[in-house]
């Protein structure tokens, strides 16, 4: 018997033009949580996809319990006792929860599915994990958090000895993360190995036994988690010392109100209701809350993407009604959306097109584009934001998440908007790029622009905002000034559920 349940030796993988993995190793002991860390583009997900049979490594070998194996498909990986929770994997929306859980291994005989067995097994599995979800409900109607829990339940049900979790907490609230950790602890006590990928330092230090770090497709090293600190991990990940997570804010917002929102309500009862606040010139207003607090829905309504039932908005003292994003743009709004890949980038278009797309009219005369002007402004914008790319002709899908985000910010800066709405501006991007984006934000407010930033990362919320507005179930539950900032205060406001209060009142 080998000491390790999994050994990956000297794994190499090359994509056209990029060496994604260069002689990477990973040794995982049974009954441990092994964190895999690295900046985006470091090759963590690629390594896991090699293990799960989605990619075929060009070189190296994989040993399970000391025996070399070849894994050519996801099915073979699962047959070998490997399960994976995928990052950003969407469910099959129009099928039931239970079908999503048992996809690819439906219970039954001779190709005929046994629905009753499937229902019973799902029920049992959910009860065992303490999940209260109807197995027959449509997957598309569930919240992101429930879908993520469903994925976790699915991985558990495969009964694997190695479970890969790629960013399992990206759409979970703190309470749900704790729930997940309970499940992880149980799996660990059952002598299963868990490979845990996350960017959240706190989680890593809390749950993992060992930490392996990768940088630029290479293996850096493995340490016991107890011997590491956040600073140490960051240092190993970026290859240099990072003293500050946030740049220093030198100026203060002015008192001039640029945007005033009064009693804004959505036509959908469960969405945002009665939202009021003032945004000042040069201010960064953070919006905190749990997943499902309707923060995204609110800013999308402000940007003309969703309907508004009642309430008023004043921009620079004049009434503003957002009927469409075109309207919003004309009034100086910019929205950096939460789902970069789905609603941000045009993956198959070059950086140039991605940068100028929101400002195209500006370069046209009688509908004919002025190419040199486009290129000049795009290259200046990208240079200003320090976008790292070979040229403007590079397809944006080939850039790292951080650089994509910078291109998107450049896109909106070109439109000369004075209210930037940033929805999770640093989700899924690495530490170095985060810092750069923070710097860009500060530069913008210095120039007199105002920022509304939604963030689910509390350190970011507290590190960057001048004021924090917290929402819960679509209502604003409170504002916090700088001297009131603490994780506890934000959580208290973020969990002021109306249903709970009602129950308490009864």
């Amino acid at each position: 018997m080998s000491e390790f349940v999994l050994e990956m030796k000297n794994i190499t993988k090359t994509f056209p033009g990029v060496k994604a993995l260069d002689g990477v190793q990973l040794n995982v002991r049974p009954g441990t949580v092994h964190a895999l860390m690295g900046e985006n583009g470091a090759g963590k997900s690629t390594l896991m996809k090699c293990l799960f049979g989605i990619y075929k490594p060009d070189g190296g070998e994989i040993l399970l319990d000391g025996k070399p194996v070849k894994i050519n498909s996801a099915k073979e990986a699962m047959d070998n006792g490997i399960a994976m929770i995928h990052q950003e994997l969407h469910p099959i929306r129009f099928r039931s929860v239970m079908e999503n859980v048992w996809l690819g291994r439906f219970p039954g005989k001779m190709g005929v599915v046994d629905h009753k067995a499937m229902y019973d097994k799902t029920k049992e599995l959910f009860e065992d994990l303490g999940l209260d979800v109807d197995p027959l409900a449509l997957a598309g109607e569930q919240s992101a958090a429930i879908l993520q829990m469903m994925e976790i339940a699915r991985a558990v049900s495969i009964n694997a000895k190695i479970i890969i979790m790629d960013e399992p907490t990206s759409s979970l609230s703190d309470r749900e993360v704790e729930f997940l950790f309970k499940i992880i602890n149980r799996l660990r006590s059952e002598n299963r190995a868990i490979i845990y990928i996350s960017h959240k330092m706190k989680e890593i230090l809390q749950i993992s036994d060992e930490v392996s770090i990768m940088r630029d497709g290479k293996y850096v090293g493995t340490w016991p988690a107890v011997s590491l600190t956040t600073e140490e991990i960051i240092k190993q990940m970026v290859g240099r010392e990072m003293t500050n997570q946030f740049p220093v804010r030198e100026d203060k917002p002015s008192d001039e109100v640029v945007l005033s929102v009064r009693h804004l309500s959505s036509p959908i009862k469960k969405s945002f209701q009665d939202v009021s606040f003032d945004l000042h010139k040069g201010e960064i207003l953070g919006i905190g809350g749990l997943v499902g607090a309707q923060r995204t829905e609110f800013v999308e309504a402000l940007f003309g993407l969703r309907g508004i039932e009642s309430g008023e908005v004043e921009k620079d003292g004049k009434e503003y009604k957002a009927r469409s994003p075109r309207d919003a743009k004309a009034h100086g709004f910019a929205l950096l959306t939460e789902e970069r890949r789905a609603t941000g980038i045009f993956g198959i278009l070059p950086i140039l097109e991605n940068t100028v797309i929101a400002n195209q009219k500006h370069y046209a005369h009688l509908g004919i584009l002025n190419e040199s002007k486009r290129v000049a402004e795009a290259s200046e914008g990208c240079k200003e934001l320090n976008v790292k790319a070979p040229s403007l002709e590079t397809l944006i899908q080939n850039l790292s998440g951080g650089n994509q985000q910078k291109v998107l910010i450049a896109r909106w800066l070109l439109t000369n908007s004075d209210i930037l709405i940033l929805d999770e501006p640093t989700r899924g991007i690495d530490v170095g790029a985060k810092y750069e984006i923070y710097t860009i934000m500060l530069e913008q407010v210095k120039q007199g622009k105002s920022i509304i930033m939604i963030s689910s990362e509390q350190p970011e919320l507290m590190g960057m905002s001048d004021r924090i507005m917290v929402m819960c179930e679509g209502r604003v539950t409170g504002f916090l000034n700088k001297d009131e900032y603490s994780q506890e205060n934000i959580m208290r406001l973020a969990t002021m559920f109306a249903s709970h209060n009602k129950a308490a009142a009864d």
Partner: protein
Amino acid sequence: MAKHVAREKYDRFLVMAGIAVLVIGALLYLCQTLPALSGIKSALSLRKIYDLPIFLMIIGLVLGLKGFISSKKHLGGEVVFSSKNFSAFLTNNAILLAMLVLVIVICILQPRFMQIRVALDILTQSSTRLIIALGICFTLLIAGTDLSAGRMVGLASVVSASMLQTATYANRFFPDLPQVEVWMPILAAIGACMIFGALNGFLVAKYDMHPFIATLAVQVMIYGACSLYFDMPPNNSQPIGGVRPDFAALGQMRIFQTGSFQGISILIPIAAVICVIIWFILNKTVFGKNVYAIGGNREAAVVAGINVFRCIMGIFILASCLYGIAGVLEAARTAGATNNYGNGYELDAIAACVVGGVSLNGGIGKVSGIVIGVLIFTVIQYGLQFINVSPMWQQVIKGIIIAVAVAIDLTKYRKK
């Protein structure tokens, strides 16, 4: 204003209403048939309502059974009548309701429409279309399409008819071919289609070709191959005739033929059986679930360990098998074949599927919807012919129906 009614009460009401309609139908029927009541018959001029009493009895029976089955399930809860639910009901069943209105209008304009014979004609005409639509729905469910369906129908009809001619017929396709068992040429015809179906599947699954292009290429190939076959001496592109009566019976036979009742075409039970089989495959088998999964989210299907290649191959082969069956039935029904049989059928089938709620984006679609989609088109075509609407106007109306039906259907999924 919302009105809440307990489910039990609602079910009881359904049963009562069903019985009431049934009784009215039965009474009218008695008035029509019993000589003793002929006085009432002429007084109410009941001859003019044709078979309406029988339809009433069937509707009553269905309503009553629906209530009865629902009450046996003890679902409990309430049925809410509110303007919101009502408008949801309208959107969900818009096209069905539109068809109902059309049928009533036709019945008023031309009471002869209310005959069992008409209903059976409509079902018969729907049969082969339904089989093709059921085949094509698989390819639509994976967000694909199949443009080769119509030409496969033609291929199957030519191949089967060419080998099933009477020994005495002058222009035999194969003058020296012995009188083989009926099933052998049928299998050959369906097999030929399945080979092309496998080619479709291979192009799509192996090279990740868009089904539109892959099946377009194969469609052209099939037509060419079929025409070459059709042009072989001594036939030289003559329409194939002289089909053996035992083969023609497959499409023309009528069952339950008694007295004045002209019987039910054999095509109706054949289509019904295929319908049940396809429903079973889609809802009860791993293959069916995988089809929905691949259509709903292909990436998720891949990482769940589904063999996407095999599944896509299966889809196109199964679909081509259904086209083959439809082609054989067409040849039998018309007792002949040419290489132009089936031309354009795929577009009718796609239209019927889409009107029946199958999403072109994949992952959504039910057999019941497809049945309704096919029936709607046949009813409209038959009904408009019945009241002498010109074929050109029929085309215009058909097009409007496709556009409106899909527009209404999409509002269901639209984000607010």
